[in-house]
């Protein structure tokens, strides 16, 4: 039996996440792994929006901010369990994405990029300035999720790093599985058709605006959950999470790895999360190396690293 690309991606992901810890020289690598998974989850959302539906968002960090602050605020102010706060954040993000996207996505072109940019900056400003609620730019503590303690009682004693590594890993596998299923569904095919040619898609009777809106809402939920996981893991969050640079980072990761591919998203997230750790010795050149990597990828691997390489492998096999 030949593996479909979908099962191959998922299988590779499961094996990587399960086996990588064998090679970890210290507990620090669990933290890096967990960060990669959190970023990869948000970037998977970007793949759905940008890679498949062909829309660009420059404000996705805003949704990450909503997810993160939902986990910080809801348990304290309304006594909601942190796990439910993740869902609440995702719901708020989805509703906001729907409200912003509905008028904008009826238009053709790059209007979403501009609208989402403004939205992201607005969210970031609210988090910075509504000090009574968010405690402002200095940040706010986030309550403990409590799952680790439950696992400990059940006889599974994980360190903090290990717990978040596996927890985020499982959420990422779930997210990738959902995204890959979506890709092969009628909606996914319609999205890709729309990306290929909006006019052609409209001609064959697709509701283009609705499809684009769906993709935007779904990707907002991915970003929101990723923000929640980051907040719960760090147990402290500042408005930086909703900052413009974080939005750009997400898009960069997607473009680097390959914006049309979930595997590429995870690869891009892994590279851009690892680079600053590898480059600590020459921290001053970090930006330079990042820029260089991006330019080289744009010139030589135009579809992003993973799809370009896969194509080369397949091409030589024929």
């Amino acid at each position, binding site marked *: 039996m030949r593996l479909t690309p979908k099962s191959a991606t998922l299988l590779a992901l499961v094996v990587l996440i399960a086996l990588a810890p064998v090679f970890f020289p210290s507990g620090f*690598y669990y933290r890096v792994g967990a*960060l990669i998974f959190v970023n990869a989850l948000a970037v998977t959302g970007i793949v759905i929006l940008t890679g498949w539906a062909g829309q660009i968002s420059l404000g996705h960090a805003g949704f990450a901010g909503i997810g993160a602050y939902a986990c910080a605020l809801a348990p304290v102010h309304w006594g909601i369990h942190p796990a439910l706060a993740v869902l609440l954040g995702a719901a708020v993000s989805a509703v906001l994405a729907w409200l912003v996207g509905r008028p904008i996505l009826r238009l053709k072109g790059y209007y979403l990029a501009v609208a989402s940019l403004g939205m992201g900056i607005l969210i970031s400003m609210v988090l910075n300035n509504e000090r009574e609620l968010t405690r402002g730019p*200095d940040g706010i503590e986030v309550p403990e999720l409590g799952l680790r303690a439950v696992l400990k009682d059940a006889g599974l004693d994980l360190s903090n*790093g290990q717990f978040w590594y596996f927890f985020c890993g499982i959420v990422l596998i779930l997210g990738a599985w959902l995204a890959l299923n979506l890709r092969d569904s009628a909606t996914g095919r319609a999205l890709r058709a729309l990306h290929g040619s909006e006019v052609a898609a409209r001609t064959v009777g697709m509701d283009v605006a609705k499809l684009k809106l769906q993709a935007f809402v779904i990707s907002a939920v991915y970003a929101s959950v990723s923000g929640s996981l980051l907040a719960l893991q760090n147990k402290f969050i500042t408005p*930086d999470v909703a900052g413009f640079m974080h939005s750009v980072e997400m898009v960069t990761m997607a473009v680097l790895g390959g914006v049309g591919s979930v595997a590429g998203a995870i690869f891009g997230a892994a590279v851009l999360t690892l680079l*600053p750790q590898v480059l600590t010795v020459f921290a*001053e050149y970090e930006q330079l190396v990042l820029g260089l990597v991006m330019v080289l990828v744009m010139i030589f691997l135009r579809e992003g690293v993973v799809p370009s390489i896969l194509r080369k492998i397949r091409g030589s096999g024929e």
Partner: protein
Amino acid sequence: MKTFLTTTALVALALPAMAEIKIGASISATGPAAFLGDPELKTLEMLVEDLNAKGGLNGEEVVLVAYDDNGDPNKARTFATRLVEDDEVVAIIGGTTTGTTMSILAVTEDAEIPFISLAGAIDIIQPVKPFTFKTPHTDRMACQKIFEDMQKNGISKIGMISGTDGFGASMQAQCKEVAPDYAIEIIADETYDPKDADMTAQLTKIKGTEGVQAILNPGFGQGPSIVTRNVKQLAIDLPFYQSHGVASDGFIELAGADASEGVRLPGTALLVADLLAADDPQKPVVDAYKAMFEEKTGTPVGTFGGYAHDAFLIMTDAITRAGSAEPAAIRDAIEATSGLAGTTGIYTFTPEDHLGLDLSAFRMLEIQGGKWTLVQ
């Protein structure tokens, strides 16, 4: 691989006696807080080099493992994890901003590693966390020092104009809280974005408020310099107070000697090293740091590098007294620090007080003719 092993073996043979004490640092040497982090990192590197040249600590070499967190709390947490888990340091200095500090302390408290923060907010040490200490005064103390001086000058109604960055926002809130203790009423309360290029609108409003006797400007970075210039341009002839956030020569340069004439702020002994009395207990340490830093970097000392100096001083003093580099022993020794003169003030820690400074550590300074002077 073989070469590597041989080299390691040779190195191990060559230096068997010299053990290491690894101290970690996560500092915002670049990014929005670089003007704080850069002198902090330079100070730490300089002091470690100097200490090792003098024979190290308890006969062991001190190794500084420093990372630049860009002022990003998420990165700070990652580096703190790296310092604890991978580099296995015995203590951490750092956390240039309140956000990065709060991220680091979550890791160090968990791992039971002593941590000395270089950030201002009172939340860092209140409630007291067993392994967390800090060297800068809190913004609350700055408010108290300023209000004390206002009270002495018969000022009871003031206008505030604050930056909306972390520093300005936190100090604005603290000042509002302690103002009633000094019978001071805040009758105008304006804010500005740290990137704003003009604050005349807010200042005009304060100027127009009936009964304002003085203006206070909590903030750091370029904002306060612009406010200072605007105050002069609007010819507002009221006592004008700045915060410790701008206590460096850079502020006078940016605002101009003319506009900053008469500005008062609470600062540390470091700024007025030349004016300290010969018998001032802080004089030797202030003079030594100033001379060393200015010779090494060619730039004038500032309050922020001084925070790092004091953190390192407290750390090394504690390790010497503990006679051991075990994290728990270092923590106990830091908490037992008593009467240690640093550049910021004289530190005495207790189990209930992990800041170790009181109001006397602040000195009221006034700018006259482009120079800092002491207000008696």
